[in-house]
């Protein structure tokens, strides 16, 4: 299959010390199967490393996965660093074990959507297809 032309590029990243990577891998595969190019950088990434990879890879979307409970702190740092690099145009979404009550705060910070355990991958694919900015 020849696929020259635009393709949505997504960085799937695991910030912090959290070692739960099943969800991130499930999402990475689902996005690939939906025709996207997914850069997966593995476990234990600092927000600096995540933003550096996102800029070098020219991704349209950053997907953060966190099940350890450190999401508030880590997601906010990623958003801050993106602002610092004038890269707020990159869509940031998150997923993992994230309590309902934290979601409004995360959204106010600039995480556009949060997907909690049990979300179907199709919902994630559709959200990204709809909201990723065309290049």
């Amino acid at each position, binding site marked *: *299959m020849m696929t020259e032309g635009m393709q949505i590029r997504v960085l799937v990243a695991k910030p912090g010390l959290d070692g739960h990577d099943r969800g991130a891998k499930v999402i990475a595969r689902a996005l690939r*199967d939906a025709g996207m*190019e997914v850069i*997966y*950088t593995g476990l234990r990434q600092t927000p600096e490393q995540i933003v550096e990879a996102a800029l070098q890879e020219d991704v349209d979307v950053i997907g953060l996965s966190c099940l350890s409970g450190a999401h508030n702190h880590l997601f906010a740092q990623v958003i801050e660093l993106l602002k610092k690099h004038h890269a707020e145009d990159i869509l940031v979404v998150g997923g993992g074990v994230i309590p309902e009550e934290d979601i409004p705060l995360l959204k106010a910070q600039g995480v556009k959507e949060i997907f909690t355990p049990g979300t179907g991958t199709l919902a994630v694919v559709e959200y990204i297809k709809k909201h990723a900015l065309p290049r």
Partner: protein
Amino acid sequence: MLCLDNLRERFLQGNMRALAQSISLVEDNPELGAKLFSLLGQPQGNPRIIGVTGPPGAGKSTLTAKLALALLARGERVALLLIDPSSPFSGGAILGDRIRMHELSGLSDVYIRSLSTRGSLGGLSAATARVLRLLQHGNFSTIILETVGTGQAETDVVMAVDAVVVVAVPGLGDDIQAMKAGIMEIADVFVVNKADRDGADRTKLQIEAMLGMQEGRRVHPIQVLPTIATTGYGVAELTQALDDHFAYVEQSGELARRREKRWHKEFSAYVANILLGDFFSWANRQDIGIMANAEWGEIEVYGLAKKATAQYFTERMKRHVEED
């Protein structure tokens, strides 16, 4: 939509995001890419391009990172291009080579980019040549290209780079025999990675014996180096072997010949693409699609293709004469 003048401006100022966006532009769209290239003019630098190839899991990514570190340590600026295969079903891809590159994060003189093959076989993507040319504007002294894991047929890399490093691992046994087909011939430097495992010496000897069989075809002896990419063992020797290779090919004129061949290959690929595109847009405009035209009375495909092409050229010529 990006403004090309603005992109060029930021690119030439050394803005990393502009470099990344330029690569996407050139990768996605050869037309816009051509415009950007004309704005950029002649590349300033003349980077050495090194290809790293070998079977999946051999340690190509780990070794590439270590090689980059060694080059950075001597003051080089390095770009890494990491290719992974696209899914034949969805066209999507998971690009995971960066997992082995964490040691390079936070360093300012290195740029890392992952590319999908986007459906092309042969270990590289159709856009790789363009992206490599773009990187020549990026003030790098070395570019390292990691191919997708080679089976055996994926020997495109040899046309894309100045030096090919083939990574093997101990205990391949029969696989080494299989690697002979194609992959053996393309190495400028051989690496037996995972030398911490049993059998590295034997594998080195096997490879040397096989290289010996093709003696005479190469003037410049090919080194077979044991490495342990996870620790960095052997990387200094690899760097030295690459320096030796470049000294040799620069002096012998082979480097210039390789680069000329590379230019020619990219050029012919575009000509083929443009012609094919024009042919099919003509064929589809025929009243009855050429492909389905019973008049041809032809089921022999080669013969049909020849006839259709001949008619295409005749009508194209006519139109040119009329237009003049």
